[in-house]
């Protein structure tokens, strides 16, 4: 049956009584179903909004930069505003922290909590490069979670280390000590270095106390006790490590210990007072102290060989 001639050039679909768009693809046609008026007007309103947006906000890219928009908004400016608001919110806490000596912090749990939180954030920015994200350190960089401290693990001692650094040039209060390179500087012969290594390793049970260790014991008594103490338990005054425990900053294998005696290590930590404000340093000290190895306050030991922490006693 021939279809009835439509009024327009476009066909009217019989089943739905709807005009088609006039296109056809392999017999498939599209019905012309116009939008309701409100929908069309909403669409126009969106176009008007887009034009207004383009005028008010930065939007049109140009060869260099782009249009700035009449509102003067920038994402950088928005961030700065947000940061200022955050800073203003933190101001009273920071002021309270600045006014509180670090040894009084444990008595103020809420302030302590804030300090630890702030320290955690500052740690991620300043300290993770060497000490690692979990503060677990690595060879040459101390683990801050454990109970072994070279220079002391109380809040004040940690703060001191942070403020003035370790072997940091340009800070006259920096923590300073220097182990001689016994092998490299020919103070000991290679064989003596091997014997000393045997003795040192025998202190923590890594090696049996054999003949080499016996010989090493004499070498140790002559060369090492000044800093590491007669029992090898180290001394915090010089940041001398405790050699009897299980923690080895530069590794405990025979090769590593021999290496450390031959070419002494002298790790450096920056004096953070040159880069950070005292409140941030206080917060960092609180955070490091909170990692599980923090020590209670002890009167600073005048003795060059202070007692090792109870937990480390063997």
């Amino acid at each position, binding site marked *: 049956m021939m279809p009835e001639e439509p*009024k*327009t050039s476009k066909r*009217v679909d*019989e*089943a*739905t*009584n*709807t*005009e088609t768009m006039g296109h056809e693809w392999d017999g498939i046609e599209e019905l*012309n*179903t*116009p*939008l*309701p*008026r*409100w*929908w*069309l007007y909403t669409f126009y309103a969106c176009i008007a909004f887009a034009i207004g947006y383009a005028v008010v906000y930065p939007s049109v890219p140009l060869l260099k930069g782009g249009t700035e928009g009449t509102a003067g908004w920038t994402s950088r400016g928005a961030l700065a505003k947000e940061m200022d608001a955050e800073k203003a919110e933190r101001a009273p806490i920071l002021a309270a922290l600045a006014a509180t000596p670090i040894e009084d912090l444990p008595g103020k*749990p809420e302030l302590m909590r804030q300090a630890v939180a702030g320290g955690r954030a500052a740690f991620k920015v300043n300290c993770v490069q060497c000490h*690692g*994200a*979990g*503060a*677990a350190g690595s060879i040459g960089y101390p*683990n801050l*979670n*454990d*109970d*072994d401290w070279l220079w002391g693990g109380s809040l004040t001692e940690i703060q001191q280390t942070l403020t003035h650094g370790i072997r940091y040039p340009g800070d006259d209060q920096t923590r300073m000590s220097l182990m001689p390179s016994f092998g490299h500087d020919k103070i000991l012969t290679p064989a003596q270095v091997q014997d000393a290594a045997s003795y040192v390793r025998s202190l923590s049970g890594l090696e049996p106390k054999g003949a080499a260790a016996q010989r090493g014991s004499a070498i140790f008594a002559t060369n090492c006790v000044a800093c590491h103490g007669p029992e090898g338990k180290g001394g915090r005054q010089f940041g001398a490590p*405790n050699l009897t*425990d*299980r*923690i080895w900053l530069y590794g405990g294998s025979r090769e590593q210990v021999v290496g450390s005696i031959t070419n002494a290590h002298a790790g450096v930590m920056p004096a953070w007072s040159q880069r950070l404000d005292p409140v941030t340093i206080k917060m960092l000290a609180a955070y490091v102290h*909170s990692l*599980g190895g923090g020590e*209670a306050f002890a009167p600073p030991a005048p003795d060059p060989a202070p007692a*090792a*922490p*109870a*937990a*480390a*006693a*063997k």
Partner: protein
Amino acid sequence: MGNLDPQGQPVMPKGGQRPLPSALHATSRAVFPRAINGRFRRLKWGLMGLCLAIYYITPWLRWHRGPFSPDQAVLIDLAHRRFYMFAIEIWPQEFYFVAGLLIMAGIGLFLVTSAVGRAWCGYACPQTVWTDLFQQIDRWFDGDRNAQFRLARAPWTAGKIARRLAKWSVYLLVSFATGGAWILYFADARALFHDFFTGQAAPIAYSTVAVLTATTLWLGGFMREQVCIYMCPWPRIQSAMLDEKSLIVTYKDWRGEPRGKSAAKLSDKPAGDCVDCGLCAAVCPTGIDIREGPQIGCITCALCIDACDSVMVKTGRPRGLIDYATLEDSEKERQGQPPTPHIKLIWHARTLIYLGLWSAIGAALLFALGTRQHLAISVAKDRNPPFMLMSDGSVRNAYLVKWRNMEDRPRPMVLRLSGVPGATMWAEDMAKGDATTQLARTIPADQTEPLRIYVVAPAGTSEQNLDFTLTATDPEGGSVHYTARFDAPEGGQ
């Protein structure tokens, strides 16, 4: 084209021969539904009253929960992250209860659709209920259908402007009451009600009310059926869910045609029951003519059934020329067979499957709710570093243990450690010299207390499971358990 459109092909709702569109948009015609009375209208009034009553009364119901919890029966406390519903208190950790309720609501819609078709659209949907309300306001102000027509076409005289302003003010009042009641579910209703009108409520309360008032005014006062036809996804989903066994509002063309006396004369057949009075189309809130067959614009509100029944009474014919029927039954009736009994229409296999699913989820939720502990423990282990070798060779792991007391009173609790021989623990607020295998704390009412706990095990301990047991030591008791991992260097070194 037959009156019964095959496959429920959506017929545009604006009436018979649609004018060919010449503009970018379809010509839209305002709908002025005529008032009608009848059993479905009465049912709709009843349901509207019920829905509105539930909506407005619920926030004012009280439920005593003791001194530490709010006494509002239904409260979504976003600030404190609690959801209260009578005797039930849901914590964010138990959000699966809410997810379960939403799943039940979804399956509930399927169930209702399977049993009685688009009943949700016709009776209970807020869009329908509020449109119904606004259309009744139209009748109070402007009179019934014909008067509304005349007023709409009348020029904008002072009188018309005054009447329109008065009506829109009432629209605004209804919209405000709608948006205003919503916020009462999110804070203590009495305090918020007072604060709201004295200007002391939070800015978010005012902006929420403003947005909801605006949307109610716009959607209920002006968009109305356009929401159902163009915006709402549910009718589209329904057209996929309805089949020949679904209850829909049907015009029984085999009984009604040829409609009217003049048509009968032309067709040489005896006149059908339909007198072509057009009342069915006049009362329709979405402005469709049901005699064109099933269509997406029909929300099955059944007002056309009431309209047609009232005419059938006058012409002395049996009621139900327009009635709820399935497509399958329509074919049966057309061939003179008796229709399927209603009970069978409703309780068919699909309905029973949905009902089974719905009840199973409901029962599972109730069971979970009835047997849940009112204390909970969650343990997050430090992963960086996973373990810590101490100077004496012992191994330390750190955990963040959360003690959760879900009762409205403080409870004493004890945390016990087991599973790793020789392991002891200390909390961040203790000295490690006091390490022990059990810690006692009193957790305040309705609180979660996080406590950082260090567990240390002797040198040589290897990686293994570690068990935390949290026990309430008050008369009510109860105990929860968490198995965590204890990491150690390989080979215990």
